[in-house]
């Protein structure tokens, strides 16, 4: 019975809340909203485009072709013995997912300030929805990746997927957490400094060059290897190539360190996000 409030719960609003209160139950109550946000993302992006959802496939293909020509053919960067196209495509697919998670999450507050100022719903639903829609995009591109791997294998290239591909969900989860974490930190900062929105694009691009998307870790000079070690995206990209293409440098300790760092950044991002969520309408 809806009209009997004594049976209902109290919602209490106070100045302070526990730091790490994820309010997952509330987010779960709004799962329909998340689903609708995901749907909105897709419908709104591809309405009134001629090629529509085909862009999901064309975008990584074109990027890969550009990389193959510039870095493979002209600069002749070594690719651990994997065919250039496959090497770059695997990097692009993985990186796209991660980069989209960051950029979408980082605009959570700035892009939704109008709605956030008028109605309450758990703000976390917005980044969660973007991560899910990115996951769908990733799924589509991943299928294309598998098709291309199969085609190269048929042609007799030295490509050896192993049973270790089962780690894929772990890699995706790690990227999602790292992406949300960094995105949340940036989105929280952009409520005060809008300039950061501009910097995100460059930052992500720079990060890509330092993450082994363009060149394998084995080619990095020894005095710069530390950069590869502290970058939690390197083991993800390298592992992805290692399990699907059979080449790359993967060390367990580094995988573990990357995973731990990702979790830490994720939690940090969520804490900051929750803090900003409570008062951001006062400052934007």
């Amino acid at each position, binding site marked *: 019975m809806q*009209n009997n409030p004594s049976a*209902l719960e109290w*919602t*209490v609003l*106070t100045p302070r809340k526990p730091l790490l209160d994820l309010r997952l139950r509330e987010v779960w109550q709004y799962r329909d909203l998340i689903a*609708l946000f995901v749907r909105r993302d897709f419908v709104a992006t591809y309405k009134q485009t001629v090629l529509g959802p085909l862009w999901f496939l064309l975008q990584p293909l074109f990027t890969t072709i550009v990389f193959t020509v510039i870095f493979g053919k002209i600069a002749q960067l070594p690719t651990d013995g994997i065919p250039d196209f496959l090497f770059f495509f695997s990097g692009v697919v993985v990186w796209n997912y991660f980069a989209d998670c960051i950029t979408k999450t980082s605009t959570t507050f700035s892009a939704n300030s109008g709605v956030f*100022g008028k*109605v309450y719903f758990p703000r976390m639903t917005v980044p969660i929805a973007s991560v899910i829609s990115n996951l769908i995009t990733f799924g589509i591109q991943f299928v294309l990746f598998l098709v291309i791997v199969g085609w190269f294998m048929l042609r007799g290239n030295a490509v050896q997927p192993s049973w270790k591909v089962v780690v894929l969900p772990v890699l995706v989860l790690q990227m999602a957490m790292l992406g949300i974490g960094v995105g949340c930190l940036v989105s929280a900062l952009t409520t005060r400094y809008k300039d950061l929105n501009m910097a995100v694009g460059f930052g992500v691009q720079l990060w890509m060059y330092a993450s082994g998307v363009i060149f394998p870790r084995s080619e990095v000079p020894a005095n710069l290897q530390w950069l590869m070690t502290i970058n939690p995206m390197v083991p993800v990209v390298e592992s992805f190539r290692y399990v699907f293409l059979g080449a790359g440098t993967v060390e367990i300790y580094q995988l573990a360190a990357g995973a731990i760092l990702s979790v830490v950044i994720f939690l940090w991002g969520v804490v900051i996000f929750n803090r900003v969520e409570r008062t951001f309408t*006062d400052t934007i």
Partner: protein
Amino acid sequence: MSEVIKVEHLSKRYRLGVINRGMLYRDLQSWWARLRKKEDPNAPISSRVSHPNRIEHGDEFWALRDVNFTVRQGDTLGIVGRNGAGKSTLLKILSRITSPTEGRVAMRGRVASLLEVGTGFHPELTGRENVYLNGAILGMSRAEVRSKFDEIVEFSGLSDFIDTPVKRYSSGMYVRLAFAVAAHLEPEILVVDEVLAVGDAEFQKKCLGRMGQVTREGRTILFVSHNMNAVQTLCKRGIVVDDGRIVFDGEAKAAANFYLHRNAPTADSYKNPANRAGTGAFRIEEIVFTDEHGHPRPEPVNGETLDVRFRFRHHTTRRFPAMQISVTFGTTDQINVFNQRNTLKGVAFRDLPETGEIVLRIPRFPLPAGEYELSYTVKSEPRGGEVLDSVHVGMAFTVQDGAFFGTGNSLSRISGLCLVDGDWRVENGL
């Protein structure tokens, strides 16, 4: 009945220096200015001037101060107050858009707040998709929206266009669809801002009608408004917010009365007008609105007698054999509604004392509720005399709805800029 909302010692502070900066560059600029002991170029000034008693420690602004009240289930509570009194902040905290600085709020049941209709509508999506999206943003589950979908579409009257992207809608269609969704929310507590009650008369009526229906279903409504008529018809109880505090809590009628009659000066805006002309030998120092008994009426009520008191002072020993004072009441968009002057009525002002009051009495004040401005000119006569004091848009004020027609009915400004009484009857035959 049981309590559904408990607000205890609620305060909200804004830090003036932090608001609306938005750029690293600005922060650096402020920091540099402070370093050189200069005035911060980014310091907000408007709120400092208009609410001096709410500023503390230089940059802390208390939008709400120790607010306490409880609401029982099924109550309809009207929250009234001037612009900037703290109503909107209270509304935002109750809607969970922002958090309190001190104190706590406890609410039982689902809370829906309507501060705007159509929040989150996406232009590329169709009407149908937007109904689901908007419903979800307002807290409805997909199943709930689905079960009410036909009702919503019927209420909006847009069944032919429901699969058209809303970017092709006219603004009227857009609002109708958005309101239809909002009207079908079924929360235990509904928080409504008066923005919902503006717009065309038909829409307003539909909105208020729907709210009345919701109350009869035993739900709790908080209604924030300037419109005393709406508050009195819709609400049982009213609280008046002023300067961040609750200054009255009681029956809606009493609250409306309190709000209309409280002794708040509005002549502040007048005292030193910038747009002043004239020789200055004679000046209007202050303009005060009162009722016929001399009680201050900062916001005139239409249908009541209004005395406009011009407090004057001669600034030289010169006295004038004849003077004309002309007063124009106009809308805020510079349309003159009516003019009144002493010479029209054959009243002569000659050899006035050094100080005193010129009083203009307007019986059955005829302006519909809304915002207005007053301008005046004082000239020495005869014709062609010098302008002594003239202020264009000297004072802004709000007119409240009263009992102009004596029936409880009122007209909005959309129907006409002036209220005129009339008698209606029927005569037989041609």
